[in-house]
């Protein structure tokens, strides 16, 4: 009887193990790496996503802050602000594929949804550069004082919306004419920006404690959603409902229902300077860089708490892994 009991326990344990492996293979691509940009020491940390061990720390350029994938998700593009170049990585392994020089002071960046434009935001130099794709031919340098920070695109690719940190404004750039179309005053020190499928812009108001929700058709702030002090970045969860907001000063991440424009659940304490995020395809795991603590947090969204911290380089900023959630737009 006892032997049979042990056999059943062993069988159950084996099934659980196989089940968890199947689960892992669904969640992760084999050999998948997490790529973290250490803006303060000009390196990328390549982390094995399954074991959460740093495999390598590799020099990549000066001040790599933000990253984006090409629209076909085949390349990961890293913007080296002080090296004035873009570095293209294999999004799965983190291997460097090529380098594109003479992109001046790229801080934040993005491709228009129609694939026609590449926009590079130069925070330090008060301007936004528009490049034609696929040649990366510079089409216009648009002076945009003061301190352009993050960029988002309208679904029809007509406009690029840029937050201006030091003048507390939001500017819209007409991509066809490459001219500033309009700008409006918004909250103090606006930073991260994201456009919802409903056509509303969500902007982290870093100098205060909320997200401004802006209707670009009306050109006005239609709601303020309080998320926490130092509201900074806005990142979709890919489930058609929620967006995550990181709050640098409070050191929290807050889930926001972007249709109902309301906060969902309690803030998750992550760490001071929490900034960019990446969400797993099933939405259960979020990786977030914690700038002032030189580490990246792995957050279990079911339990709503960080389950592991991984020390990385100085002032980690952008973070990415291949099997991420859909980018709701």
């Amino acid at each position, binding site marked *: 009887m006892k032997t049979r009991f042990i056999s059943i326990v062993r069988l159950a344990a084996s099934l659980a193990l196989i089940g968890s492996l199947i689960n892992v293979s669904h969640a992760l691509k084999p050999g998948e790496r997490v790529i973290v940009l250490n803006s303060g*020491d000009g390196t990328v940390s390549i982390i094995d996503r399954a074991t959460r061990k740093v495999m390598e720390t590799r*020099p990549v350029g000066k001040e790599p802050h933000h990253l984006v994938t090409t629209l076909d998700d085949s390349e990961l593009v890293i913007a080296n602000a002080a090296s004035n170049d873009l570095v293209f990585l294999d999004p799965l392994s983190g291997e460097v594929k090529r380098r594109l*020089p003479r992109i001046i002071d790229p801080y934040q960046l993005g491709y228009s949804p129609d694939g026609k434009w590449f926009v590079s935001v130069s925070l330090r*130099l008060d301007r936004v550069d528009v490049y034609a794709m696929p040649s990366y031919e510079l089409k216009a340098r648009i002076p945009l004082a003061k*301190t352009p920070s993050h960029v988002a695109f309208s679904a029809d690719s007509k406009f690029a919306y840029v937050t201006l940190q030091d003048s507390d404004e939001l500017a819209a750039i007409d991509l066809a004419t490459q001219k500033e179309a309009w700008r409006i005053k918004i909250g*103090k020190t606006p930073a991260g920006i994201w456009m919802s499928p409903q056509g509303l812009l969500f902007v982290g108001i*870093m100098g205060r404690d909320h997200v401004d929700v802006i209707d670009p058709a009306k050109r006005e702030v239609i709601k303020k959603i309080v998320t926490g002090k*130092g509201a900074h970045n806005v990142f979709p969860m890919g489930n058609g409902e929620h967006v995550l907001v990181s709050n640098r*000063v409070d050191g929290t991440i807050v889930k926001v229902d972007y249709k109902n424009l309301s906060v969902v659940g309690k803030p998750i304490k992550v760490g001071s300077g929490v900034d960019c995020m990446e969400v797993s395809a099933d939405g259960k795991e979020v990786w977030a860089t914690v700038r002032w603590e030189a580490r990246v947090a792995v957050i279990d969204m079911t339990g709503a708490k960080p389950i592991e911290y991984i020390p990385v380089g100085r002032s980690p900023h952008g973070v990415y892994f291949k099997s991420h959630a859909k980018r709701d737009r």
Partner: protein
Amino acid sequence: MSKCGQARAYNLDMEFAFQGFESIVGWLFINAVQPLLFSLDLMSWSEQAFDATAFFVGGALSIVVTALVCLPLERLAPAQRVSTRTNVRTDVAYTLVNKLGLLPLLSFGVLLALVTPVDAWLRLHGFAPFSLEDVAPMLAALPLVSVLLYALVIDFFEYWRHRLQHRIHWWWQLHALHHAQRDMTFWSDDRNHILDELIAALWLATIALLIGVPPAQFPLVIFATKFIESLSHANLRWNFGLLKYVLVSPQFHRVHHAIGLGHEGARHGVNFAVMFSFWDKLFGTADFRDEYPATGIRDQTTGRDYGMTFWETQWLGFKRLFNRA
């Protein structure tokens, strides 16, 4: 070394150098600086303030490390007897002000307020400044090699800044404050007029515009350079042996500060190098004599007053600048 091996060695170096340091910087920034920025509506300056915090912590650590090394050495083999402790105390004050206040503020304020708009204007009008990585693209993947190259180029420009400090009349009126120390110790390195420090920060920023921004590891080079500079001012009988032909030794630099040598002759002095002594050899200003002469300026022996305390020396520096002292 293979590329992979190089990356691994680099990892170890970085981990060793940064882990403890970063936690102190992070703690200070999170608990003191960031709340201040938030309450003063200055959150946009977070990155720069974070770097300034690192300079502050680095400055404090470098004071401790330099004192731990230099104090016992100065006691072991002094080059001269200290005539008055007040002179030394003034230089201690200079070191504290410089390393804990001025350097973080200059790195934070000058670059942001003065240099960035110039850089922005130049780049907006199509002038893309030259960068060392343009010449040697492989440097991007070799930050430690890159950082040494930047250090060499910057030290070259520092040699010429120092020569101009002695050559240009008004500039010497400020720099004389540094040379007026008759009781030179390792604390004397930071004994500079505030305007002179401002010019030095602008000089460095301009070079950064010309050759590109040094890699992120550059602060380590700054601290290594500052250590050599402090050691070269030490009240210490040490000439580094054969290494004196590469690095500036306490003896080599004492000759630069010597009465009747350091600010005399057709080239307005000798031994101007800051870190690498070979610049003097290369440009015909080296004096490797095996002596430890008394330091100061010739006109001090005939009664010219350069002040004794921090404020006296600063004020007289201003007055000399306008020919009022």
